[in-house]
Structure formats: C-alpha cells, structure tokens
C-alpha cells in the first residue's frame, strides 16, 4: 500500500495518475475502520485532508458552497444559522471525535444509506461538484449516489464541493436511533420549507438504498398549505406523514424492522412539518 499526501487538487490529480487504484481518504472514520477489520486493503490511498481547496465554505450569489473537506464539527458550529437542518444532522453524527474528523465529502463518498447529511442534502436539492484533471462536472445528489455505498464518482475524480441554495424558511432534521448520542440512524428525515418558492421538500435517510425524496407528500402539502402562515390543517399534516412513509423503501436489519422504519418516517415527517408551520 502507498499513501500520498497532496496539498492541492493539482497534486491530488498527480497522485491519482501515479496511483490509479488509490482509495480516496477524507476523515477516515469509515475507511480506516474497514481497514482495521480487514474488510478493505486497497493498494494505495490518497489522503485529502491537507488539500486546501476542499476546506471551508462561502456564500456565492444565492448559494452556499460547502467544501468537501468541511468537518461535521465545522458544519455544526458555523452553519447552524444558514443551514439549520444540515447543522442538526451534523450534530447527531457519532461522537465529538468523529465529528472532528468526518467530512461532508466523505459522507457523500461513502454513500452509506445511513449517512446523516444525505437526506438534508436531498431536501436542499444539493449539487455536487466533481473535479478531475479533465475538468469538472456537477451532479445532483440522486445522480451521485447510485446505490448502497455506490457512487457515480469516476477514477481520477474528487468531490470538491457541495452547492445548496440559500432559502428563506424553516429547515428541520429528525433522526430516530436507539439513544441520543453516538447512534447510527434507524430512520431520519430532512425537511426544508422554501417560503419564496412555496414548496416543502422532504428527504428520507436509512429507509432505502439511497436517500429518497418524498415527492408525493411534497406535492400534496404544497397545495394544502396556506402560505401566508405558513399553516396547514391537522389532517393535511397527518396525510403528509402517511405519504412520506409510503415513499420509504425500508428493509429489516439488525437496527430495526421495515415496519418500524416506515412508522418512524411517518412520525418524524409529521413532526418536522408541524415544527415548520405557524
């Protein structure tokens, strides 16, 4: 195994040309565990934590540009005002030690169904910018994450940043697990209300191979909300939860049953919408 330590994207592209079979390494909280347990033994690793272009975040016109190297601690501390649901999701990731190391780009690259940032990014209609020596391309979250721990990332490509819109309106993240701290989600949901666009967007996590949008629930509630509040009748809010649960495609595993997950989605989506309305 070889390990490269690029400091710039250009050096990282060099390393990926030299080590074409290399695994990209961000915070290490998923990958190094797989190596510890003997599940992975890639011939080479390109460590990205020194790459300056991946650090930090900025406002750009109507968007927020989040560097792939942004840690969950940074998201939690710096973005609670701009992106409250993403900050809330970051706050539920692992322990402080994990949040200090784990990154947004790593969460996307790992593409675990339980990745906590993913349902929020789905609800935000996040665009992910991938760069390589050949140039760059921008994918929607649904195009990037293609299956359980599978992405459309090509050899030689690196996730540089995530672009999300700056929206006016409440944003919620709710997660169900066995306890409050250090828990992998059994079901989670990100809900974003866009007051100007008059839409409600709802992403679900841990209840399908990839993050899913509750499209039918979204379309239904957009028509049922009185946008001057915004407020909605209780039966419409309840119906929203049922439709969101219907969008889930959960499995039964060691963390929970499919039935429990579907019910959990209904509860958390109803609750997230209730908290977002007047």
């Amino acid at each position, binding site marked *: *195994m*070889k*390990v*490269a*330590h*690029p*400091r710039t994207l250009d*050096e990282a592209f*060099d*390393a990926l040309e030299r080590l074409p079979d290399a695994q990209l*390494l961000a*915070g*290490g*909280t998923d*990958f*190094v*565990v797989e*190596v*510890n*347990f003997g599940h992975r*033994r890639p011939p080479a*690793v390109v*460590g990205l*934590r*020194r790459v300056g272009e991946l650090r930090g975040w900025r406002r750009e016109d109507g968007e927020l540009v989040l560097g792939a190297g942004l840690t969950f601690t940074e998201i939690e501390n710096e973005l609670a005002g701009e992106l409250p649901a993403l900050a809330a999701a970051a706050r539920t990731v*692992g*322990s*402080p*030690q*994990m949040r*200090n*190391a784990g990154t947004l780009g790593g969460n996307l690259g790992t593409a675990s169904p339980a990745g906590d940032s993913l349902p929020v990014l789905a609800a935000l209609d996040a665009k992910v910018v991938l760069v390589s020596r050949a140039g760059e391309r921008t994918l929607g979250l649904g195009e990037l994450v293609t299956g359980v721990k599978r992405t459309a990332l090509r050899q030689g490509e690196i996730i540089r940043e995530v672009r999300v819109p700056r929206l006016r309106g409440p944003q919620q993240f709710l997660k169900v697990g066995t306890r409050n*701290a*250090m828990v992998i989600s059994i079901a989670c949901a990100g809900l974003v209300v866009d007051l100007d666009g008059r839409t409600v967007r709802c992403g679900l996590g841990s209840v399908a191979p990839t993050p899913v949008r509750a499209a039918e629930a979204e379309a239904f509630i957009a028509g049922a909300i009185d946008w001057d509040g915004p407020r909605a009748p209780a039966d419409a809010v309840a119906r929203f939860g049922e439709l969101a649960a219907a969008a889930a495609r959960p499995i039964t595993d060691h963390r929970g049953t499919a039935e429990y997950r579907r019910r959990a989605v209904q509860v958390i989506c109803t609750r997230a919408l209730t908290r977002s309305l007047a």
Partner: protein
Amino acid sequence: MSGDAGVDAQERYRLKVNGREREVDGAWIGESLLYVLRERLGLPGSKNACEQGECGSCSLMLDGVLVASCCVLAADAVGSEIRTVEGLSPEGELTDVQRAFVTQGAVQCGFCIPGMIVAMHDLLDRRPDADELALREAISGNLCRCTGYGRIFAAFHAVKEERARAST
C-alpha cells in the same frame, strides 16, 4: 509532481509525536495511528478497544483537534502534530486534570481514563468556562462502564475550581 511524494512501498515514515520526530520502520502502511503508537512506538497510553471510533479510549490530539486515533491512518498523519496522553505533561508529572481524577476517585478500572483525560483537556482548552452539560456533550464519545461518570464530573468541577482560584 507533488512536492511530497507521500509514503511509498518502503513503508518507512516519520511521525511527530509529543514534540519528537519518531521513525516508523517496517510497518504495514495500512496500520492505524493507534496501532503504530502502541505497538511500534512504545506509547500504550492511548487504549485500544473498539477499533471503530465508538469508545473514545484512543482519543488524542491531531493538529490540535481531538480525534479517535483508531480511525486515523498512521501514514496519513505524516507532517501532523500528534499529542497523546503521555505528552500532556512532562515525564513523571501529572496534569491538573489527572490530579483531580486521582483526588476525586474518578478512576475505577482505568481503561477509558486516558481518552477521558485527553477529551477533558480539549474541552477546557477550548472553553475554559464549560459547564457540566458541555462536559457531558464533550465526553459523549468516551465510554466508561465502571464509574457511572459521577466522580468524573466531580473531577471536572474540581479542576475548574482550581483553575479559577489560580487565576484570581
């Protein structure tokens, strides 16, 4: 080409641990920082339990940030400042947090304590006025199965009081 060619198949690299340059030779390059510290550099203070970032017993400071060293690839820590529990105070001396753990009886089996000490120092360095809720959050990733945490909280308050007295 990169100015830093990285660590190659010779599997020899240097780590800066507690202010000293340490040579790592003959190691498999996929080893975690925790493993290298304990098994190759004679620094067993960071404890090895879960190897998956769940227990916090391997906590140390990497470039001034609290991390679980079981989740750090040692060869990716080249060029970084690593501070382990052994490096919190000069050889043979205890830090104020360590003394408080002793006087408050915050140690039972002791396995989680090095990680707990590192995490508590990190919190008090970042937030000298941290309250108990902040402490609970800060050590939420440091699992102790013996003490019930009560004496650990007592040690935290003792350190804060001692530091407050020292600064007035």
